[in-house]
Structure formats: structure tokens, C-alpha cells
């Protein structure tokens, strides 16, 4: 049983509190990704789970056992580090068997477990090499192999792909997803790359300044963000934000006017907000429609258009409200310096002045 429960977990360095009361349930075999900007506390939280950082307050339960003061090696976890952390003086085989050797496992059993992990990760020809004789991707596979050998209940990954080039990152991402399927173990994965989070996770935990902003399935977070921070963080390109004012309100909708597009009004299905309140309208790049197709049209000045083959991105309105518009049509030509796009009320999000979602 490898479920985890975090109850009011706090971490302070002196008077500076960096993790501010995190509550989280992670189910057995779940792939959970901690995501957030640099300094949000995601790695610290992972290190607290690993036992590499003391927990200042709260309870950490792995299975049903309180693990706050248990030695890292006895928590049933294995960790893969961003810098691989392979012992440079040991061969791949020695690196992978090192933990088992110290756990008192017999030599034949170590050999069997190491060979099994090597088979899973196709490390066979590399077993007698030193880490310095391996490429970045191979080192990362060895680091994962070292974790597998320990047969942990929970795998912890701390930004494992950050040191790899773009192509290898995609390859290793698929490897990790395959591995999760094969091993059927709980994985907690830290990244600042929301694409990794979206593609790998069963559940994403978005953190900001030591606080959990939202927990949910990737598309749940994408489609239904709890606040402006999550809306802006999840999704690439990030969500567009337009300043607006509430001009009218009914029982089931809020009518807003865009401040930088005078006269453009639309009614968003929501019950919150007050007339005269300054709000923010969020629209994803792919939700801008053709002129006349939505509930309101806006005219934008085109700055740059990027053609990626199947998709084009139009960057518009620099200086005032930088917006990104996605056009699915390939080979789209933007001859003019202006573009008219429409916004559909049912594909727009409303946030109050504190960034909270108005529903």
C-alpha cells in the first residue's frame, strides 16, 4: 500500500516559512506532479517527503505510518535527482546495487535485481561503464534504474529532465510514462515545466509560495482553473488576460466591458461579482474565434505571427495587453497588420481583483 497523506505540512527556515500548511492525499499507484514557478516550494516539499528536510509541523503518512522522523532509507521511497547524483567512482552496476549492498542483500540477489532493472531500462551494454562515460540521457536512465532496484513504494522525481536537451526530454518523458505503466507504483514528480505536468500526471498539484493553489487532473485544471494564477500557469501558450469592468449583472450572468476595447461587452455565465468591479477576463489562445463567430469581436494590432506548420500563433497588442491567438489552419497568411477575433462567453473565464475565479 503506497498511498501518501500530507496533513498541515509546514516548513520554516528560521523565521521564513516556505511551506505553509499543505494538505494532500495521494492514492496508491497515482502519478502526481508538483508544479509551480521557481521558489514555490515544490522541491522542498518533495525533499520533506524523502526525509532530506525536517518537517517543521504537520504529519506525513506513507501507507498509514507516520514518517516525519523516519530515516530516508526506511520510508520506502527512492529518489531521482535533477543532476542524476550517480556516484562518479562506481560503474553503472555498482551504482545500481549500492543501496542493496548497504541493506545487507546477498550478492546473487543484488545481481538479480540489478539485471532486472537493467532489462527494463535497456541498460545492458552500459553496466560496466563509469558515469562520466555516459551521455545525459543514459545517466538519467541509470539514475532511474538505481531507484527501481530499491523496489520502492513511492518514486520521487526532482526535475529529472531539466538537464536534458529538448529532444531527449520528450523521449525520457515517454520512458517515464511507460515505466509508470509497467511498475504500477506511486510517483511524485516535481517540475516547473507545465507541459511535463500535463502529459505525465494523473493529478497535478499547483504550488505558489508554499501554498497549494489547486489540485486536480490535468484537463480539469486546464478547463476549470480555480484562480488566475493556475489559469496562467497551466497551458501553453499561457491564458490571455484582458482587463474588464462589470457593467451589469443578472441571476445567472455577469456583463462585462473590456477596458482596452471600448464598447466591447459580453455576458459571462457566472453569479459572482458586483457592478462597477474591476475584473479580468481570461481567454485561451485557441478560444479566440473568427470574426462574428462568438459573442463579441475585438480588433487587435498584429505584432508577430509564428507559423509552426499545423498551427500559427499571432502575437498582438504589444504594450497594452499582449495577447496570443492560436490559429489551427496551416499556412495561414496574415497580410494585414490587424486581425479581428471573437470571444465566446462560454469559453471565457472571469477573475476578481484578487485573482479568484468568479463563477
Amino acid at each position: 500500500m503506497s498511498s501518501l497523506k500530507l496533513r498541515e505540512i509546514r516548513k520554516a527556515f528560521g523565521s521564513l516559512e516556505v511551506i505553509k500548511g499543505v494538505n494532500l492525499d495521494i492514492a496508491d499507484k497515482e502519478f502526481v506532479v508538483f508544479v509551480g514557478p521557481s521558489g514555490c516550494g515544490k522541491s522542498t516539499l518533495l525533499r520533506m517527503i524523502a526525509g532530506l528536510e525536517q518537517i517543521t509541523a504537520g504529519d506525513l503518512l506513507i501507507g498509514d505510518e507516520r514518517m516525519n522522523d523516519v530515516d530516508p532509507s526506511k520510508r520506502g521511497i527512492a529518489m531521482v535527482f535533477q543532476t542524476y547524483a550517480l556516484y562518479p567512482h562506481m560503474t553503472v552496476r555498482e551504482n545500481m546495487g549500492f543501496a542493496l549492498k548497504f541493506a545487507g542483500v546477498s550478492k546473487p540477489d543484488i545481481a538479480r535485481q540489478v539485471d532486472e532493472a537493467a532489462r527494463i531500462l535497456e541498460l545492458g551494454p552500459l553496466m560496466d561503464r563509469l558515469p562520466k562515460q555516459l551521455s545525459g540521457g543514459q545517466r538519467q536512465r541509470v539514475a532511474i534504474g538505481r531507484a527501481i532496484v530499491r523496489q520502492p513504494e513511492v518514486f520521487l522525481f526532482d526535475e529529472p529532465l531539466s538537464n536534458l536537451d529538448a529532444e531527449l526530454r520528450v523521449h525520457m518523458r515517454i520512458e517515464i510514462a511507460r515505466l509508470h505503466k509497467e511498475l504500477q507504483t506511486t510517483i511524485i514528480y516535481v517540475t516547473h515545466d507545465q507541459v511535463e505536468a500535463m502529459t505525465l500526471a494523473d493529478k497535478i498539484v499547483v504550488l505558489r509560495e508554499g501554498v497549494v493553489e489547486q489540485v486536480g487532473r490535468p484537463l480539469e485544471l486546464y478547463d476549470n482553473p480555480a484562480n488566475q494564477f493556475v489559469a496562467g500557469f497551466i497551458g501553453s501558450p499561457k491564458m490571455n488576460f484582458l482587463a474588464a469592468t462589470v457593467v451589469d449583472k443578472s441571476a445567472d450572468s455577469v456583463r462585462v466591458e473590456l477596458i482596452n476595447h471600448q464598447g466591447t461587452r459580453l455576458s459571462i455565465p457566472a453569479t459572482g461579482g458586483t457592478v462597477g468591479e474591476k475584473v479580468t477576463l481570461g481567454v485561451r489562445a485557441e478560444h479566440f474565434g473568427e470574426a462574428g463567430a462568438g459573442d463579441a469581436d475585438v480588433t487587435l494590432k498584429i505584432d508577430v505571427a509564428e507559423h509552426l506548420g499545423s498551427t500559427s500563433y499571432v502575437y498582438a497588442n504589444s504594450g497594452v495587453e499582449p495577447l496570443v491567438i492560436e490559429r489551427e489552419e496551416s499556412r495561414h497568411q496574415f497580410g494585414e497588420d490587424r486581425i479581428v477575433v471573437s470571444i465566446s462567453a462560454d469559453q471565457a473565464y472571469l477573475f476578481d481583483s484578487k485573482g479568484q475565479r468568479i463563477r
Partner: protein
Amino acid sequence: MTVSPMIAGAAARPVARAFVPGNAWALARRGLVYVLLSVAAFLSIFPFFWMMVGATNTSAEIIKGKAWFGGALLTNAATFFAQVDAPRIFWNSGFIAVVATALTLAISSLAGYGFEMFRSKIRERIFGLLLLLLSIPFAAMMVPLFVMFSQAKLVNTFASVILPTVASIFIIFYFRQATKAFPSELRDAAKIDGLKEWQIFLFVYLPVMRSTYAAATIIVFMTNWNNYLWPLIVLQTAENKTITLILSALTSAYTPDYGMILFGTVLATLPTLVIFFLLQRRFVEGMLGAVK
């Protein structure tokens, strides 16, 4: 295919370089650097060369200023071995240097590791205090140190030479600085692998930092092998003397035999040379702070 006139012109430009004052200055500066480096190299190598040459000449030839190899090597060797109980003296020096080096490396590297890995305000202050102690000259500590060893009845023992050197502040500082380059993730990985702190030190830190240890070995061994002032004070009987004390005693004779003394000096430099050449590659890595 057309070629733009500009590019074509560039290709046709004559290869001979025109005189540019800036280039001449750069050339002169480089020349000056070479001259200075050559002088420095000569000043470094000449004493060593002169020692080797002197070991093959008679005292009279050396005094006359003969600066090339002669034929008195065997005579000098015979005189040296007749006057000096060489095996005993080299054993004394070797024993002191090897034990002091081993203990210094063990204690100082542990201290350097501890200061860097377990940082706290109080430890930072203690470390600052240690660095401050570096500024106290050894001469100021000699008398109290002698009294201390005298009270402990350790005067005229090898322990009295070894013990004051084993907690070297400079080597602690050196190891602490080197430990900054030790990847903290390795320690984290080792903790997760189930290693205790002493096991991390022994099985991860020590092999990873072998270049640092190699460089420190050379520095500490050389310091202890060449140690003169303190052994002169505490080693009082002939059978305990080290090679540096014996060489010094030979030079203070009424008519010193320089050929024989220089032969002894050549012998005395051999162990340090051997250690240096054995650890040379690691020494360079260690001094650069490399963690391989």
C-alpha cells in the same frame, strides 16, 4: 553565379600584414612575459640543478664555483654514509612524515567536511576563530607548546613532533573549500541509499575527493618531511633526529664538507619527489578543486 564586388575584393586582398602599432605592442608585451617567465623558471630550477651538481663535486670545487657535474659522487656518498646513520635517520623522518600526513588528512578532512556540511552560526564563528589563529606565528607558540609536552612527558618522542601538526588549520580550510564543490545531491542520494554520515564520508566523499586528498598529501608530507624548528626543540637525542636536523648539524661543522652535505640533501629530496611524481596528475586536479 555572381559574386558581390565587396566579397570579391576581400578575397583578393594581399595576405601580407601591414604594420599596426597595436600588434607591435602586443608582441612586445608577450616577449616581456616570456623573458620574465624564463627568469622565474631559471631561478626555480637553478638551486635544484646546483644541488645535483654539488653532490658530484668536492667541497673545494664547489667553493671555487664549479657549476657542472664532477666525479666525486661516490666519495661524497661514502663520507655521508660513514658520518650519518642514514637508515635510522630516514626511518625517523619517514615515520614522522607518514604518520603525521595520515593523521592530518584524516582529522583535517573530517573537520573540513563537518564545517561545510553541518553549517551553523556557532560553527561559522569557530571556523573564523580558527582562521584567526593562522595569523599567530609558530615562534609565539613554541614555549607554551614545549611546556605542555614537557608536562605530558612527551619531549624527545615522535609523538611530540606529530601531534602539534595533525589539526592543521590550513588543511581544514583547504578541505572545507574543496567540500563546497562536492555535490550535495550525492550526499542526499547516499542518505536515501541508507548510508550513515560516517559511511557517506568513507564510501562516497573520500573516493570522490581523491584529487583533493592527493594534493593535500603532497603539501602535508612535504611540510612534515621538511619540518625543522619544532623537531629541533623537542627531539633531543641523536637516535631520534630527523634528516633536516642532521643536514643542519653537518653544515655547522668547523669545515663543512659541502659535497657530502649536498649529497645528503639530494637524498633528502627524493621521497618528496617520488610522492609528487606519483600524485602529480591528481595534485593539479586537486589544486583546481576538481571533483571527478
